[in-house]
Structure formats: structure tokens, C-alpha cells
């Protein structure tokens, strides 16, 4: 049982890192997409203050929301082990590319969006696979807790 816990902990540490970088990536992507929409909407690269729209640009749809029963305890910190992922993300598109958006052409924006979208799918795929592994290990642990082969006492 300890081995199952250890494997789950490893997978979880990896997932925490991936989910963090994925969210950063999605944020960059959402900002770019919002800029593209704004351009194609009124056709002029007049800067409507991005800061003002930032909160709606970056927020998740209500669909994302899991209720009390489906919620999991989550850590809120910069995870360990993100360096490999952040380096790769910055290589695909560095955050500084977001700074001069009004000056970019629509083609450039679209190119940025495509690059990030591909990388986002990559990360989401890795994340989903980690979920499958973590959830399987947790189900196995749950079964052991249920039939008494494992107890919280082991951890305390």
C-alpha cells in the first residue's frame, strides 16, 4: 500500500507541475485570442484597454466548476519541478510577446495562437494521462481503505 501511495504522490507532483504551466499557457492563449477577436470585430488596432477586459478574458466558463462532492483538496503555490515545462513553454511563446500586441499584425497573432494551441493540446494530453494514472491509484487505495487493508493510522 505504501508503494501505491508513493506512486500516486509522484504522479501527483508531476500533475501539479503540468497543471500550473498549462494554466499559464492558457492565460497567454486567452489574451492572444481576445486581441484577435477585438481586431476582427472593429477592424482597427486601437487599444481598448486590455487591463479592463483582462478579468473576463482570463476567467473560466462556469462549466468548469466542480461542486463540493467532486472537489479535491488542491495546493495553491508555485509547484516544484516546473522548470522543464516552463522552459519549453517560453520557447514556444515567451510572455514578453504579449506586451506589444497592438503593434502585431493579424497574421502574427494567428501564428502565435496556432503555436500555443498545439502546445496546449500537448500539455492537456499529458495531464489527462496523469489523471488516469492518479485516479486509478486512488481508486485502488479507496478499495483498500474500504475493506480495511489500509487505514489513516498508517499516515499519522
Amino acid at each position, binding site marked *: 500500500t505504501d508503494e501505491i501511495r508513493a506512486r500516486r504522490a509522484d504522479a501527483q507532483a508531476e500533475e501539479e507541475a503540468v497543471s500550473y504551466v498549462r494554466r499559464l499557457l492558457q492565460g497567454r492563449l486567452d489574451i492572444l485570442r481576445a486581441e484577435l477577436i477585438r481586431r476582427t470585430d472593429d477592424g482597427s488596432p486601437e487599444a481598448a484597454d486590455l487591463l479592463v477586459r483582462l478579468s473576463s478574458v482570463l476567467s473560466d466558463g462556469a462549466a468548469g*466548476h466542480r461542486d463540493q462532492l467532486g472537489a479535491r483538496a488542491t495546493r495553491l503555490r508555485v509547484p516544484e519541478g516546473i522548470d522543464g515545462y516552463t522552459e519549453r513553454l517560453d520557447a514556444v511563446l515567451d510572455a514578453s510577446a504579449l506586451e506589444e500586441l497592438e503593434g502585431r499584425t493579424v497574421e502574427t497573432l494567428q501564428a502565435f495562437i496556432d503555436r500555443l494551441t498545439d502546445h496546449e493540446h500537448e500539455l492537456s494530453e499529458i495531464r489527462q494521462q496523469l489523471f488516469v494514472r492518479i485516479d486509478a491509484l*486512488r481508486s485502488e487505495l479507496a478499495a483498500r481503505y474500504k475493506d480495511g487493508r489500509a487505514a489513516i493510522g498508517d499516515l499519522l
Partner: protein
Amino acid sequence: VEREVEALWERYRDTGDADVRERLIINYAPLVKYVAGRVAVGMPANVEHADLVSYGIFGLMDAIEKFDLSKGFKFETYAVTRIRGAIIDELRSIDWVPRSVRAKARALEAAMQRLESDLRRTPTDEELADDLGWTLEELQETLTRVSMTSIAALDETLDVSGDRISLVDTLQDLTAALPEESFEDEETKHLLRETLTRLTEREQTVLGLYYFEGMTLSQIGDVLGVTESRICQIHTKAVLSLRTKLVD
């Protein structure tokens, strides 16, 4: 490419220019997406996600103003703490938990504390309801409404011997598989571990499965063989019970 943002920080430190500050904000804005997403976990759906993000952005602006490059910390680490703090402070000030519910929770906790010291054990639901002059339904309804599955709910509550400890982080630090830069010191961790052993077996199991094993309440309900509504109440009560013992 690390150079670019560093140069931006230098320029901001030298000039305090609003335009440079705006670039820094946009550069780090995705951090707010991360934090707001995680603060929202386990919270009731009546809280608008876009609002969480906008509180978070104020936290980010604040972090940019206050950050001291020379201190040698990573900005992201500092920013995540400030963003989280800003969102939770704002939630508290807009009463995301209605005042009436909050008052009932306080009365409940006071009753728990009182009965604990009289009975030398965790009071049953019936004992609590009697002491408060509530029906059992009213007690269970309160336990359901005071949801403890969100960081915001736990964060605003713990004040142990003058230190504000984040119960969530400490609980999770206790069983971390990796050595971590813990938010809490060894003493707090030891206190928490020792306090957990004073809970009933069921309370320990619920908290342990949720915080140490990362299971959902629905999974925990299945392990314990209780209904969905009951597991929410049991979890809330276990957290309140832990808290009353901690501040004892």
C-alpha cells in the same frame, strides 16, 4: 529570453513608469488564472469566476508594486501568495458566506468548544443540537451550508497561538512525498499531527482521505458507506472539530 522580463523589472524599478507596469501586469497575468481557478475549487457556484479574477488582478498589481528584486525570491512565488490573499480578503469583505450562516457557524463552534471541555470528547450531533436549542435538521443544514471544501473557507479561520496558519497548506505539508519549502514550521506540523490523533477515528479518516489521499468527498462517502449529504456534513464537522482543538 529570461533577460527580457528582467530588463522590464529594472526599467520599472528605475522609472516607476505606468506603461512598464502595465507590461509587467500582462506578462504575469496568467498567474491570476491559475490562482483564481484553484481558489474556486469547492466553492459554491454563486461566486462569479470573473470577479475572482478581477480581485486577483488587484493582488497582482499590488505584488508588482511591492516586489523587491534584491531579496532574491522568485516573483511568481511572492505573487501567488499576494493574489490568493487579495481574492480571499475581497471574498470575505463581500460576505460570500452570508452573514446569517457565518453567525450560525460561530455559534456551532462555540458549542463544540464548550461541550468538548465538558465531555472530554467530540459531542454527537444530537448533543450539539440540544445545547444550541436547534433541531437536528437545523444542525445538519448548517453543517451543509458551511462548506469546508474550499481554500477560502479554511483560510479565513485559523488563528493558532497568535500565528495565522493556513490549515490547508499545513495539512497537505504533513504528508508531502517530496521535501518542500513548507509554509509552516515544524512546530505547527507537529501540533497538527498530534491534534489529529485526538479526533475520533471517523473524523481522522475523513480528513485524512481528503487532505492526505486527495480523494473527493463523493469517494470518501463511498469508503465510509454514508450518503452524499451526510459526507459533506461529516467533513465540515471534522474540520470544525479539528479547529476547536487547535485553538484550545
